[in-house]
């Protein structure tokens, strides 16, 4: 299988979908500069730089989506979504319902999250749970190059507003991407490793920490199942519940803060729907309830690491 970085996988997905559908266009601050090969192929009308104004970028996308185009917008870093919340939440997320179904919003918003660039809390903030908590939106956050491509293609074809979060730490890590038309359906978790003693649920870069922890747990005689959510909304609750029915134990892992995060939702679903199978407390591992520091060691210590996941799983099994 060919190898691509997620950055290149995103570029490939954009190019394929723009070829496939002339209504797809992409814009944002510097998109046309950073993806100039798209300008070369599709021209400046379909690949646009914008003024520095996240609100109108997102609003323009919503207005265009409702009237025949399929915009993909790049809002750069997740904290900058703060300037576009009205357009994403109040317009794209609600106007279909408010209008009684008169409009649909086929649009994709790209944003980077997480540590890895050492630039502090106004660039590094995992706020994906806000959008999971908001009606009418879909939320994706892949962990592998293949899923970056396959999920983005699905997102572009979806008729709903999709937030597509890019874990910065993964962006330039090459990974395998199936050749040809590679589509990953939205809303399906991916069981990356089968296990019987404990379920590790995660998304984004901490999926890889879970896989590493699972390998160490195997050495310690513990069989861990690893689930990569990929899609945070719709959330594949059934896959998680099925796994916990089997293992009876659950550790949820993400870089985002725990309070009212995606991990809380998963724990709550399991505590409701797999209670009878649960043999131990549910552990959530997440970043501290604090802004992310720029200083390298603090930044790196923010997300749960392999030893923490290993220890949590071990504590449940003993």
């Amino acid at each position, binding site marked *: 299988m060919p190898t691509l970085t997620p950055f290149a996988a995103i570029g490939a997905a954009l190019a394929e979908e723009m070829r496939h559908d002339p209504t797809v266009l992409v814009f944002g601050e510097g998109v046309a500069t950073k993806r100039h090969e798209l300008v070369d192929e599709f021209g400046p009308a379909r690949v*646009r730089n914008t003024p520095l104004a996240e609100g109108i970028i997102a609003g*323009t996308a919503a207005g265009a989506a409702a009237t*025949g*185009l399929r915009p993909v917008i790049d809002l750069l870093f997740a904290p900058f979504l703060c300037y576009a919340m*009205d*357009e994403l939440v109040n*317009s794209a997320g609600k106007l279909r319902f408010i*209008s009684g179904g008169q*409009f649909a919003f086929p649009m994709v918003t790209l944003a980077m999250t997480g540590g890895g660039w050492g630039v502090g809390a106004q660039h590094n903030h995992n706020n994906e749970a806000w959008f999971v908590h908001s009606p009418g939106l879909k939320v994706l956050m892949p962990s592998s190059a293949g899923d970056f491509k396959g999920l983005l293609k699905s997102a572009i074809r979806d008729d*709903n507003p999709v937030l597509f979060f890019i874990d910065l730490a993964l962006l330039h890590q090459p990974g395998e991407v199936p050749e040809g038309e590679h589509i990953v359906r939205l809303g399906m978790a991916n069981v990356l490793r089968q296990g019987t003693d404990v379920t590790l649920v995660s998304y984004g870069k901490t999926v890889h920490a879970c896989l590493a922890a699972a390998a160490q747990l195997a050495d310690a005689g513990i069989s861990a199942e690893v689930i990569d959510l990929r899609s945070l909304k719709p959330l594949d609750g059934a896959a998680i519940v099925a796994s916990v029915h089997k293992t009876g134990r659950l550790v949820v892992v993400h870089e985002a803060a725990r309070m009212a995060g995606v991990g809380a939702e998963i724990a709550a679903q399991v505590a409701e729907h797999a209670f009878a199978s649960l043999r131990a407390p549910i552990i959530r591992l997440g970043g501290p309830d604090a802004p992310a520091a720029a200083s390298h060691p603090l930044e790196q210590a923010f997300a749960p690491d392999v030893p923490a996941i290993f220890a949590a799983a071990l504590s449940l099994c003993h």
Partner: protein
Amino acid sequence: MNSESQAIDEIALLEQMLLVRAYEEAIVAGSVAGKIPGSCTSVGQEAAGVGVVSALHGDDLILTNHRSAAHLLARGADPGRLLAEVMGRATGYCKGKSGSLHISVRELGVMLTSTIVGGELSLVTGVALSQKMLGRTGIVTCFFGDGAACEGIFHESLNLASVWELPILYVCENNQWQAFVHRRETMKTEHVADWAAPYGIDHATVDGNDVLAVRNAALEAAEQVRRSGRPFLLESWTYRSRGHFEPDDQAYVDPTEHAAWLARDPIALSRQRLIDSGRLPREEAVALERRVRECIAAALAFAEASPLPAPGEMTTDVYA
């Protein structure tokens, strides 16, 4: 336009303004009676809305906001389905999910109505981009208030429309009020139109209480947008005669200012002009008013007889 066609037009315009007024008065009465939820009425601004909409083509699109009755009715929306929407009935244009504040009627080109102040400004650029990129001919009209002009999105919208050369007719209904705050407290300039110039956007201010003046200014402005493919900002200088949201005792309103504007009521002005000039015989005016009242009475009966949405509607229309 020769004076003959103007005469005909103005009677039609007067009828539309009367319809808007009667519609709003029905809502006010229903809301006093506890039968209709409160709303933001267009009373006093009928000319500003009707005049602009009369200048648009059938394939032009409109974005509006919480104070939309004049735009919707002038565009041909059925008062029965509008009242049904305001009353939360299943037969409303939005199945009762919107209520009064964000009524869209896609089949008439009234798109993406939003009650977030500034929402229309944030969405209009995308609608206009679709028109331009998909090669459609209609221009896009965006109605917003003087209050909306204070939101940051005003700046972002005008700047992008200018830089991307989008066919947008921005129409600011400067009605002097921003909910419970007078325009004077929120901006140093009197005219929102002044804010358009630095973007390289042409602009004009018109007497928003004179329906013919509004219509003519809008015809010219729309023509310029059509010809140039670029945005234009038209400001209607008008007044919100009733409160912000029904009921509202307007205790905070300066009575002198209020009285001065009531003396320039757009409907009375147009009616008087037509009668004085002999274009509208007094008995025809009375007949017109009766027709409009009957139309609204029928609409109200339709809305009141309409069913409420089924409980399951709470979760439909969320995703496409």
